[in-house]
């Protein structure tokens, strides 16, 4: 067994001690995890962003990078009240470019294609509407009606909203079931590591 396996095994056990109650061993492992994660991410970000994309190209004569460097430094103007309005300029660039890239990209795949697929499963195929397509369409309309708050949920709208809540419950139940499965998988993964790599009970 190498030293890294031993450290990983001991830290896994340290984290699992939380199942009894909060304790200093768990706290130590938790803080170590947070510290190492942040340190690792900082080093990766520094080398792959600041060095690779900024300082090295600048040293190589790519002086156009002074513009994003200046914008980046202007963010820190927020720390000096007198110059804090300057920090709004890089934020405006970030939000503007981010929204410009995101809105059309999201509108198509998330809304238009999904709407097309939902309706297409009912009316768009030569073989006629599929049962699951009809259920999905009813679920979509009923769920949307639940989130329509401009009129009281009474009469037909109330019935539709109530059906919508059932569809939501099914979704939450399925998602929760998958989440339980996911958490169990993580535990099984660590249990397998402890039994095989650390203790050698399994091959």
């Amino acid at each position, binding site marked *: 067994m190498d030293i890294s396996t031993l450290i990983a095994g001991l830290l896994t056990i340290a984290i699992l001690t939380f199942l009894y109650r909060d304790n200093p061993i768990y706290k130590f492992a938790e803080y170590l995890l947070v510290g190492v994660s942040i340190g690792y*991410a900082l080093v990766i970000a520094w080398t792959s962003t600041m060095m690779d994309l900024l300082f090295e190209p600048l040293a190589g004569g790519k002086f156009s990078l002074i513009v994003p460097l200046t914008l980046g430094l202007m963010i820190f103007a927020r720390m000096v009240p007198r110059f804090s309005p300057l920090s709004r300029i890089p934020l405006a660039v970030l939000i503007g470019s981010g929204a410009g890239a995101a809105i059309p990209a999201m509108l198509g795949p*998330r809304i238009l*294609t999904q709407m097309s697929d939902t309706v297409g499963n009912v009316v768009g195929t030569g073989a006629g509407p599929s049962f699951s397509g009809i259920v999905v369409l009813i679920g979509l309309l009923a769920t949307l009606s639940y989130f329509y708050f401009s009129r009281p949920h009474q009469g037909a709208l109330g019935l539709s909203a109530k059906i919508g809540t059932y569809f939501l419950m099914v979704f939450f139940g399925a998602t929760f079931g998958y989440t339980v499965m996911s958490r169990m998988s993580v535990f*099984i993964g660590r249990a*397998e590591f402890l039994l095989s790599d650390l203790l050698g009970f399994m091959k």
Partner: protein
Amino acid sequence: MKLEARHWTFVGLLIVVVGAMLLGVRPDVTISDETQRMFEYIDSLPEGSVLIYSFDHESSSLPEIRPAALALVRHSFSKGHRIIGVALLAEGTGIGYRLMEMAASESGRQYGRDWVYLGFKPQYIAAILSMGESIEKTFPQDYFGTPYDSLSMLSGVVNYQQVAGVVSIGDGNMAVHWIEYGQSRFGIRISSAMTAAMVTTYDPYISSGQLHALIGGLRGAAEYETLLKIGGGGQRGMLAQASAHIYILLLILAGNVIYFVSRRRRD
């Protein structure tokens, strides 16, 4: 040391999981359509096809996602595909490299000729868009600092047009970004191996064909290993997972019975 009810619940779960793992029994697994599609997709690509594997997850989901990722990379190498590894989340960088390096050494694949690892790129949306224009401009050098044009495998690989598909190994919304910015804008085929908790989020994308195929969690890994006819972490964990689920169902049942009985006595 005072043990409360929840402690006994945990002890019970530990006994169930460890006991099931030590039994070493591998139950039969029914293959889902999504996993079958993923297998057929990887299996049907011509030898020498270029695939991008994007390690878009954090270390906390490694125990769940590693068996699926390993099975996929092993399958790709066995079919003679060339793989470009990237990471769009910082924590996935080292994990992705170690996993690919392990699978490559098992199958005798050579770095630079059969696979490369380009490492991490911040700002994932910008990275996905930029790779659609030029992978070399996005990653001028690989994980070790070797210039892009010095890696023989990447000769002629300019952007997504020379890539057969992207497989996002993820634990969050990164596959959605691949769909929105990669598939929607550049037409690149997106598939994913993801944690089970994310599967319901991606069902609509599977239905619409925006996501070509997916492997969900440990169960998906077990299905894929079954199709590959190899053993792995997915199959090893299946009995433990099934046993843990039955244990939880019994707890829910017992909890409800106790609740209704105690309410009746109170009334």
